């Protein structure tokens, strides 16, 4: 299976993401620059965290007009797994691939620490290796992770089981309904503020994020590899 890590000017979690796939997951992975036109050779697309275009105007607002976004939309339409973490999530929101928007954290501070998450939906291509309702520990690192959407959108998210992760216990940023991660209606585009790529080995303080990437591989193998 071949992963793409999309690199925007200002991405800074791209190397962590690459390391998680290449060294911990053990799958093929390549960096793709933001002006790439084609992602056809990749089976899954990862949008890493960081501060694309310096977060000018709004987080993710400028990155969404990059050339590569057209290819990402195409891959999303084709049903390929697309994961946006932190700034990657913000870009997916600005691009309209996921509903809602990010506000500044209600504390007005940048928060960087491990948090507890509850896996609300383990029937997605990103979470199948988790138990239903499993509580996991994944680090967050953001100043704008305060998820917001209007009431109608929220009801749709709930009805379609699109809320994949919620903050468990304390909500660090004030997000609506403790939302930490959501998928699109089709279920192949996941955006989340916590960084699973920073939790793929005990030496990093925990490996709870690894199952997310393993879920993607499991999904892909089930769909593409014929076993005899």
């Amino acid at each position: 299976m071949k992963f793409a890590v999309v690199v925007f000017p200002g991405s800074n979690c791209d190397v962590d993401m690459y390391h998680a796939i290449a060294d911990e997951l053990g799958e093929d992975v390549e960096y793709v620059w933001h002006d790439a036109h084609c992602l056809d050779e990749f089976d899954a697309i990862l949008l890493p965290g960081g501060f694309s275009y310096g977060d000018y105007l709004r987080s993710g607002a400028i990155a969404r007009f990059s050339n590569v976004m057209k290819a990402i939309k195409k891959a999303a339409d084709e049903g390929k797994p697309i994961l946006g973490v932190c700034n990657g999530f913000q870009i997916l929101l600005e691009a309209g691939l996921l509903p809602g928007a990010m506000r500044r954290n209600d504390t007005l501070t940048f928060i960087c620490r491990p948090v507890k998450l509850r896996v609300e939906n383990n029937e997605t291509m990103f979470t199948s290796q988790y138990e239903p309702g499993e509580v996991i520990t994944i680090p967050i690192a953001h100043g704008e992770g305060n998820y917001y959407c209007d009431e109608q959108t929220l009801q749709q998210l709930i009805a379609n089981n699109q809320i994949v992760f919620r903050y468990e216990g304390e909500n660090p940023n004030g997000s609506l309904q403790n939302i930490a991660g959501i998928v699109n209606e089709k279920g192949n585009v996941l955006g989340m503020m916590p960084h699973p790529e920073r939790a793929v080995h005990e030496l990093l303080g925990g490996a709870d994020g690894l199952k997310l990437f393993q879920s993607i591989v499991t999904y892909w193998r089930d769909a593409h590899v014929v076993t005899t």
Partner: protein
Amino acid sequence: MYKVKVYVTLRENVLDPQGNAVKGALHTLNYYEVQDVRIGKFMELVVEKSDRDIDTVVKEMCEKLLANTVIEDYRYDIEEVVVQ
């Protein structure tokens, strides 16, 4: 040539944490008459005349990029200026 001033603020029904913090600071300075503070962005654009209607162009730019209409409202003033 046009000078366009664009104002972007969080929507009325969206909590503005920065505005609230500034309101609290104003209250500590004894400006208790301050009821509400909304913090936003102010942008100045210089736009050349074209065959497209300036109001339509500015509105389009606001909708597409300058504001995120999920959480933000925008308004703008357009002033025609004569180039010296």
